[in-house]
């Protein structure tokens, strides 16, 4: 039976529970053991989790998701469960409340299985910036799973959780999904509540599903989207999310931006991506080139705006009320300095400094103001492109999973991992990554992006393409 359970997608598992083929408790226990084994294996494991449930919760009856277990990225606040955002400064922090999106998913019938590892405060593309050690890629344990939602991606790919929640600021769902051969979707900014998500960059952060297939992503997302009165930036989507059913792409025009498919993209990735585009054409899609002239500036703008917001968002970690407080301080300023010196890792400090500089008096307009104008230009580029094409297709990441430690000494090389995903984040539009094949035995992701609130269309297209590509994720399961 265990082998059979591992074969089920989350949607299938929910259906099985509803049909009485498997009990929610049995399914939870199955995954709890697998996740617990990974945690207990320490450095011999994948390092996916920062916390695993001790007991199976009472299976929720009469709910649409019937008790399917859910892994949740560490940075979501979960009441009385450690929520540390991968940081030493929040080590052991137990929030008194649960994030809106997690609470919604619990009401819909998911059970909290585990909290997953991540780059500290979601700053990173490899999950090597976690204070609690790296997560390994289940396809090749010498390689990174991507990041910052690397724990969620690796856990789903390895079959340690049926599905997971991630967050995406500049690619933190899509890039690890691509590197681990799973599906990851970043929704339209504002459609999923940010209340209870430990913030990195507020104007970009967005929660999304990380799943084995497109149907699971759609099902999980359908229980996440809602206007939240506790989040002033949350929106009511104009139409209800439809679960995907398309098998063809007739009448769909895919635009391929030259700016994101040229220099800097690994040859093997590009070949796999182009092969997937040919499959799309076979399904009836027409493929043409579009231009996003400002997309090459996206990364520069992002590395002003996101650190600027982060420098302010992370000011609250001062040792006064919760989390780490360094001892031996002589006065208040000394306490702040020591706490933040000891509590934050190198990448977080780098971004706090970048952001503080960008917001400084006299530099604000040259950096923050300028970056905001670039952001507007990029959004206009997309709006223009969507007048010509329905969806935009790019490789999700410029390379397949890279080696552990390969880019930790070169922050700029690491930042380039998000080259293809950051433009969509700045524009606030939805984008999904699906696995489209292997290059050198490692997964390659294909990214589809659409206009704001086009999630149903996006999922439909991804669904059709997924069927045609028939990617096999089984080799990653442990």
């Amino acid at each position, binding site marked *: 039976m265990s082998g059979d359970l591992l074969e089920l997608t989350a949607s299938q598992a929910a259906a099985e529970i509803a049909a009485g083929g498997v009990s929610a408790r049995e399914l939870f226990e199955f995954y709890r053991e697998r996740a617990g084994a990974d945690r207990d294996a320490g450095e011999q494991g994948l390092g996916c989790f920062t916390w695993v449930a001790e007991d199976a919760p009472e299976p929720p009856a009469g709910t649409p998701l019937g008790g399917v277990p859910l892994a949740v990225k560490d940075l979501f606040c979960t009441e009385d469960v450690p929520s540390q955002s991968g940081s030493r400064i929040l080590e052991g922090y137990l929030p008194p409340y649960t994030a809106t999106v997690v609470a919604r998913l619990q009401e819909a019938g998911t059970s909290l299985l585990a909290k997953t590892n991540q780059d500290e405060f979601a700053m990173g593309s490899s999950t090597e910036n976690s204070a609690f050690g790296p997560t390994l890629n289940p396809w090749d344990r010498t390689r990174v799973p991507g990041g910052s939602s690397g724990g969620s991606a690796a856990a789903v790919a390895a079959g340690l959780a049926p599905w997971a929640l991630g967050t995406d600021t500049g690619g933190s769902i899509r890039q690890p999904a691509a590197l681990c051969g799973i599906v990851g979707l970043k929704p339209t900014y504002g459609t999923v509540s940010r209340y209870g998500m430990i913030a990195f960059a507020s104007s970009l952060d967005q929660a999304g599903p990380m799943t084995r297939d497109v149907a699971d992503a759609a099902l999980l997302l359908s229980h996440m989207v809602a206007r939240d009165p506790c989040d002033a930036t949350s929106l009511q989507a104009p139409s209800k999310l439809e679960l995907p059913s398309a098998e063809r792409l007739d009448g769909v025009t895919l635009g391929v931006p030259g700016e994101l498919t040229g220099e800097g993209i690994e040859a093997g990735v590009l070949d796999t991506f182009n092969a997937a585009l040919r499959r799309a054409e076979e399904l009836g899609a027409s493929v043409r080139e579009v231009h996003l002239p400002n997309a090459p500036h996206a990364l520069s703008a992002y590395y002003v705006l996101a650190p600027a917001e982060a420098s302010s968002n992370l000011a*609250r970690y001062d040792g006064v009320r919760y989390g780490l407080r360094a001892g031996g301080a002589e006065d208040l300023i000394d306490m702040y300095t020591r706490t933040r010196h000891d509590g934050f890792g190198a990448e977080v400090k780098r971004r706090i400094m970048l952001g503080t500089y960008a917001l400084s008096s006299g530099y604000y307009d040259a950096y923050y103001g300028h970056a905001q104008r670039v952001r507007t230009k990029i959004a206009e580029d997309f709006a223009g492109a969507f007048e010509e094409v329905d969806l935009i297709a790019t490789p999700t990441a410029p390379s397949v999973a890279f080696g552990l430690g390969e880019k930790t000494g070169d922050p700029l090389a690491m930042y380039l991992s998000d080259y293809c995903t950051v433009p969509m984040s700045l524009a606030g539009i939805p984008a999904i990554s699906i696995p489209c094949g292997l290059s050198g035995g490692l997964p390659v992701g294909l990214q589809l992006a659409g206009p704001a609130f086009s999630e149903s269309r996006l999922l439909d297209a991804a669904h059709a393409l997924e069927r045609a590509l028939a990617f096999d994720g089984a080799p990653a399961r442990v």
Partner: protein
Amino acid sequence: MSEDGAQRSNGAAAGRFEAVIGLEIHVQLATATKMFCGCPLSFGDPPNTHTCAVCLGLPGSLPVANARAVHFGLMIGLALGSELAPRSLFHRKNYFYPDLPKGYQISQYSEPLCSGGELGGVRIHRVHLEEDAAKLIHVGASGRIHGSEQSLVDFNRGGTPLAEIVTEPDIRSAEQAGEWLKLLRSTLRALGVSDVNMEQGSLRADANISVRPAGSSELGVKTELKNMNSFRFIERGIRAELARQEEIVSAGGRVELQTLHFDPDSGSITSLRSKEEAHDYRYFPDPDLVPVAIGAEMIEAARAAMAELPAARAERLQAEVGLSTETARALSFRGELGDFFERALAAAAACSTEAQPQALANWLTVELVPRLDDIEDPADSRVTPEALASLVALVSAKQVSVGVGRQVLERLVADGGDPGAIVASEGLTAISDEGELARIVAEAVAANEDAAERVRAGNAKAIGPIVGHVMRETKGRADGAEVSRLIHAQLGA
């Protein structure tokens, strides 16, 4: 010319300087809940009993702006004649302090809710909304963070909505600053947007102070004076700082740009921080909040919610009730006096013999208020508006003399009661029988022959001893003017 200039630079005497003062007033808005969360506002409750994830700045929490605070802010803007922003934006003001749980204060910067305006001859620079800091309690002898053994934080106050009202530097003296603040307070009280209680901190004022040679139009280097939590301290603090600056400049020195702390106990002024330590607040638009679009219906709702303001009340009391300009202002700028007056006026209208409005106002401001000592609002005294109205009616109808009226007022202040009943039980009714009064006057003239002779000789002032005699005999019940007329008649002078 040069000699005159040289003299000045060698040290101008006090009085050669002009004070230039601008005020920054923080007003706690009397909303039900805090600026960005659902916690109730409170004062004096046990520490940290009105807090939540948002006002404690817990990880993951997000602010949502309080629509009622925006409504109150618009009412203030309308009352001050400000221009209301079509779109209002919240910024983050970044700095570290233990009373600021997020490491930034949500405030307004480049797009305040209200810009410009004027009140009582002082121009308004801007009005913006922000959140209050938490309260620090420093355990130890100093009572301040330096030298304290321990500092505790009470987050009950943290997140309370504030309107910050900033004036232009139009104020020229400490006294004017105090008077203007009273006008602002009564305006805000009339709007009903704040408790405006300085002792409880719902009205707090900082002053930007500089001096310059009288007649100059340039601005000197200013200092910011903080911690003046009563009207008395504001005037004392500003006076002390003006004296300090005048002394520096007189001695040929330069005033240093800095933030100062006024200690009301010692009257001393100490530096909190100088320019070198000034913060770079790194303002930027708060990405957790969306801009507030100020629609016509919001402005209409604010206008509809506004009661009559002091300036308008003064005009009405003058034009419709017939009070003098000075009296109308005195009653309007201290709203509690205006309220007491209008209640007394309504009661007087019900009396058979009406009290004259101006007489009623004079009895209130000249006779009653000075007798109330520490009681600021006459409504809190034992004298009811009805009692004052009936007393003034008795005096106006000459049923009691002015002197008896004052006696009765003393009784009312001490014990309360009804003036008519006091007059009746004490036999204080004015002597209206002219024959009886004429007899007492004749006796008085006879008893004061010297004075009578001088009055006959044309010295009108000599009448005093004779009047005094009559008043003693009648225990003040005689009408002064009538007595004077009878004396002159009897002496043929």
